[in-house]
C-alpha cells in the first residue's frame, strides 16, 4: 500500500466511520476524529522521514489508470516540497481536532466535514495528476462553506459565501487553464510529470500562466484577491480557521508552484515580476491593515495575508533558495497561524466571548499558557531568529534580492510593522487593563495545552534545526529550479 494514498484514505475512512456513528454518540465521534488525526500525523511523519534524501525527486510514486479515455490517472507522489506540507497538514489536523473537542453542536457533521476537507488537502499535496489535484482542491474548499456557515461566528454566512465564491471563481480560472494545457500538450494526459516535460509555445505560456497562477493564488491570498480571507478567518470556527489559514492557503501557493510555475516556466518568467510586486503589497499592506484592526481575529487574518505574501514572493523569486524558503515559510506559517487561531478562537474567545481588543486585556494572568503561546507565535511571526519564521523569511529574501532588490528592501518595512502589530495585540490582550465585563474563566485544558505545545515545539525545532526540513526541500527544489529557469 502506498503510504501517500494511505494517508488520505485514512482520513476519508475516518469521515466514513463518523458518518456511520449515531449523532448523539459525541464521545466516540470525537475519539474517532482524534484517532484518525493521530494516525494521519503518524503516517505523514513516516512519509516525511522515509524520504530518501540521496535519491531526491519524486518518491512514493503510484500510478493507476482512472479515466483512461481522457488520460486521467490516480497518480500520487511526493517530493521535498509536498512532504513538509503533508506533515504540516498532519499536525494541523491533529491539533485542530484537539482544539475542537468542545464542539457540541452536531459534532458528527462537523468532524465528518472536517475530515473530508483534510482528505482534500492531503490529496492536493500528493497529486501528480492535474485532474486529481483539481478534484482534491475543490474537495478541500467546499466543506469550508458549511463548516464556516454552520459552526462559525460573526457574519458567518456572509464570510462563508464570500470565501466559497472567491475560491471557486479562482478554480474556474484554473479549470480553463487546465483544459488549455491538456490540448496544447497533445499528449492526452493530465499527468503533471509528463506535462512538465512539454515545451509549450511562448504565446501560449504567456496567456495560460496567469489563468493558472491567479486562479490558485486566490486561495493563496494574493493581493488584491485576498479579501475573502480575513472575513473567512473571522467567521470560521477555531479549528477551521486553523486549517484554513494553516493549510488551505498553502494549498493555493503550493498549486501555484506545482502547476503554474512548473508547467509554464516561460510564462512564469514573464509574469512573476508582476506577481512579485503584488506579493510585496501583500506583505506590507497586510501588516499595515493588521495594525489597525480592532478584532483580534482580524489581526491574525491580515497577518496571514501578510505572511502569505512572503510565500508568494519566494515563489516568484525563481531562485532555489527563495523557493525553498517559500516552502519552509508555508510550513512555518502554517504551524504559527494554527497556533494563533487556537489561541484566539479557543483559548481566548471561547472563554471571554469577545475578540474586541479594546475589551480584552490582562489575560496573561488568568491564562498564562495562552500568553506564552501567543508570545512564541508572535516572535515566530516577527521573524525572530531561533524560530521557524526567521529561517524561512531569510531564505525567501535571499532569493528575492537576486531578482527584485527593491522589493526585498521594501519587505523590511513589512517586518517592522509586523513586530508593531504583534506587540500591540500582545499588549492589548495579554497585558493592559482587563475589561470589568470579563472575569472568571476556566483554565486552559490539558488538550488545549497539548495542541499548543505540539505546535510550539515545531516552531522551535525548525527554528533551531532547520536542516531537518531545509535539506529535504533544497534537494527537491534545486534540480527543479535549475531545470525551469536555468
Amino acid at each position, binding site marked *: 500500500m502506498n503510504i501517500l494514498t494511505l494517508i488520505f484514505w485514512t482520513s476519508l475512512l475516518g469521515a466514513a466511520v463518523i458518518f456511520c456513528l449515531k449523532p448523539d454518540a459525541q464521545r466516540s465521534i470525537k475519539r474517532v476524529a482524534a484517532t484518525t488525526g493521530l494516525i494521519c500525523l503518524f503516517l505523514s511523519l513516516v512519509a516525511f522521514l522515509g524520504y530518501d534524501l540521496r535519491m531526491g525527486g519524486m518518491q512514493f510514486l503510484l500510478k493507476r*489508470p482512472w479515466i483512461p479515455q481522457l488520460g486521467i490517472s490516480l497518480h500520487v507522489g511526493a517530493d521535498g516540497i509536498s512532504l513538509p506540507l503533508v506533515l504540516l497538514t498532519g499536525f494541523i489536523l491533529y491539533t485542530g481536532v484537539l482544539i475542537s473537542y468542545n464542539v457540541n453542536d452536531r459534532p458528527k457533521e462537523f468532524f465528518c466535514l472536517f475530515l473530508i476537507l483534510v482528505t482534500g488537502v492531503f490529496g492536493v499535496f500528493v497529486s501528480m495528476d492535474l485532474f486529481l489535484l483539481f*478534484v482534491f482542491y475543490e474537495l478541500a474548499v467546499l466543506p469550508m462553506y458549511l463548516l464556516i456557515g454552520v459552526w462559525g461566528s460573526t457574519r458567518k454566512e456572509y464570510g462563508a459565501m464570500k470565501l466559497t465564491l472567491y475560491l471557486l471563481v479562482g478554480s474556474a480560472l484554473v479549470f480553463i487553464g487546465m483544459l488549455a494545457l491538456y490540448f496544447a500538450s497533445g499528449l492526452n494526459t493530465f499527468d503533471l510529470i509528463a506535462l512538465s516535460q512539454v515545451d509549450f509555445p511562448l504565446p501560449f505560456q504567456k496567456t495560460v500562466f496567469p489563468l493558472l497562477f491567479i486562479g490558485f493564488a486566490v486561495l493563496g491570498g494574493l493581493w488584491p484577491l485576498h479579501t475573502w480571507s480575513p472575513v473567512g478567518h473571522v467567521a470560521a470556527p477555531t479549528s477551521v480557521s486553523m486549517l484554513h489559514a494553516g493549510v488551505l492557503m498553502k494549498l493555493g501557493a503550493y498549486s501555484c508552484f506545482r502547476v503554474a510555475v512548473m508547467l509554464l516556466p516561460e510564462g512564469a518568467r514573464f509574469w512573476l515580476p508582476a506577481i512579485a510586486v503584488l506579493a510585496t503589497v501583500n506583505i506590507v499592506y497586510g501588516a499595515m491593515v493588521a495594525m489597525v484592526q480592532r478584532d483580534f481575529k482580524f489581526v491574525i487574518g491580515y497577518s496571514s495575508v501578510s505572511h502569505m505574501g512572503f510565500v508568494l514572493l519566494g515563489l516568484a523569486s525563481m531562485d532555489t533558495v527563495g523557493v525553498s524558503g517559500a516552502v519552509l515559510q508555508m510550513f512555518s506559517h502554517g504551524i504559527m497561524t494554527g497556533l494563533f487561531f487556537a489561541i484566539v478562537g479557543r483559548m481566548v474567545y471561547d472563554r471571554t466571548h469577545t475578540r474586541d481588543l479594546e475589551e480584552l486585556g490582562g489575560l496573561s494572568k488568568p491564562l498564562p499558557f495562552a500568553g506564552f503561546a501567543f508570545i512564541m507565535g508572535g516572535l515566530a511571526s516577527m521573524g525572530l531568529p531561533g524560530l521557524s519564521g526567521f529561517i524561512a523569511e531569510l531564505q525567501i529574501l535571499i532569493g528575492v534580492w537576486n531578482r527584485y532588490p527593491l522589493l526585498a528592501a521594501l519587505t523590511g518595512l513589512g517586518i517592522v510593522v509586523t513586530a508593531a502589530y504583534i506587540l500591540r495585540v500582545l499588549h492589548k490582550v495579554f497585558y493592559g487593563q482587563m475589561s470589568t465585563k470579563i472575569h472568571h474563566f476556566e483554565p486552559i485544558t490539558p488538550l488545549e495545552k497539548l495542541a499548543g505545545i505540539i505546535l510550539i515545539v515545531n516552531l522551535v525545532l525548525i527554528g533551531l534545526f532547520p536542516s531537518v526540513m531545509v535539506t529535504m526541500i533544497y534537494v527537491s527544489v534545486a534540480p527543479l529550479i535549475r531545470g525551469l529557469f536555468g
Partner: protein
Amino acid sequence: MMLILSFLTEIILLSAIFSLLAVDLFFLRKKEDVLRLRLIGTLAALSAVAAAFPLLLNSSQKFYALSGMWVLDPLVIFAKLAILVITFVTILLSMETPYTPHISEYFALILSAALGMLFLVSAEELLMIFVALELLSVSLYLLTAFHYRVERSSEGAVKYFLFGALSSSFLYFGLSYLIGLSGTTNLSLIGEYLRSLPHITSEPLLWVSAAFILVGLGFKLAVVPFHLWAPDAYEGAPTPVAAYISTGSKLASFFILIKILFVAFEPVAGSPLHTAFVSGWQPLLAIIACFSMTFGNLVAMAQKNLKRLLAYSSIAHAGYILVGVVAATQLGISSVLYYLAIYAFTNLGAFGVIVAVSSKTGGDDIGDFAGLGRRSPLLAFFMILFILSLAGIPPLAGFFGKFYLFLSAVGRDTEQYGLMWLVVVGVVNSAVSLYYYLKILKQIYMIEPTDPSPIRASRPVVFALLLAALFVAGLGIYPTPLLTRLDILISYLPPIP
C-alpha cells in the same frame, strides 16, 4: 422474431398502461387512496422494470424495422434503458403522497409519456419523431395539470400546453418544408440529399425549415428564448412530474436533437469557432447555449421557490449540454450523453428530496427547507449531494459531466482554441451558479427551523434517492465504465469528424 423482440418493451408498457387502468377500475375503486397509490405505483414500477428486460436481450447489431422508421441499436437501447430507469424513479417518487384521486390515470400517463420517449429515441424518420413527440408532450401536459387542488397546476399546464402546441406547430411546419424539399422523411436520406445540393447556402427554404425545427425542439428543451413555460410548469406540476419533465423529456429531446442535427443537418452545421465562423446551426446553438446558461443562472439567483429555481437551473443546464452539442465531435456527443444521464439522476434526486420535504412542510419554497439539516440529516445529506452535483463540485458526477462537456468543446479546435469563448462563458456561469446552490445549502444547514419536528421520508422515496445518489457519487468518482460504454455506442451514430 427480431421484430417482436425489438418492440417487446413498448408492448409491455402499453399493456401495463391498460392493465393499470383495469386493475384500478375493477378491484380498487372502493379502497383507500394511500393503498391504491402503493399498489398501483408498485405495479407501474414493476412494469417499468419488466419493460427493461427485453432490451437486454437485443444483439449489438443495428436493427431496422418498418422500412427504416424504427431503429434499434445499442445506443438507442442505452437511451431506452436510461428512460426506463428515470421512469422507474419517477414512479417511486410519486408514491410519497397522492396528488390526485385519479391514481391509475396518473401512472398510466407517466407510462404513456415513457412510451412516447421510447418511440422518440427509436425514430429515425420525421413523421415518427413527430408522432412520438406529440405522445410524450400530451401525456406531460395532462400530468402537469394533475395537481388538481393547486391552482398553479392548471395555470402551469395551460402555459405548458399553449407553448407546447405552438412549438409543435413550428416543428411541424419546419418538418413539412424539409420533407417537401428533399422528398423523403428519412433522416439519413435527407442528409444525403442536402449533401448533394450544389449551393446549399442559397436554399432559403432549407434555412427556414432548419430554423423552425430548432425553434420547435428548443421549446422541448426549454432553452432561452423558448424557456418561458418551464418555470410555471415546474412550479405548478406535481413534483415528480416536474422531475420527469426536466429529466426524461429532456433526455429524449436532446437525443433526437442530436440525431436530427448530425444525421440530417450535418451539411449545414457551420462553425461556431470565433477564428473561423461559418453560419449554420452550430453558431446558432452556440449563441442559444450562451444565453441559456447566462439567463438561466442569473434568474435562478432571484428565485424563492425551489422548483422554480430548479427550473431555471435546468434551463442553464440545457445550455451547458448544448456546449457539448456545439463541440460536435465524438468527444462532444459522448459528453452530452454522459451529462444527460447524470443530470437526469441528479435532478431526479433533487426533486425527490423536494417531494419528501414538501409532503411534510406543505410547501416547496426555499424557506421550507430551513433547518432540514436538523430535521432530517439523511434528506439533508442527499440534498447536498444533488445540489453540489448540479453545481459541478468534484468528486460528484456533475463535476465530471461539466468537465467533460467543456473539455470536448475546447477539443473542437486545439490549434487556436476557437471555441474557448463558449467554454469561458460556461465556466464563468457555473461559478456564478454556485451562489444560488449555496443559498439552498445555507437554508438547509444554517437557518434554524421554525418547526423542528423531524421529517421522515417514505421507503420508496429513500430507495429512489439512494439509487440516484449512488449514480451521482459513483459516476462522479469512477466514470470510466460509462465512458467506455459510450465510446462504443457513439460508433452507432453516423461518423462525426
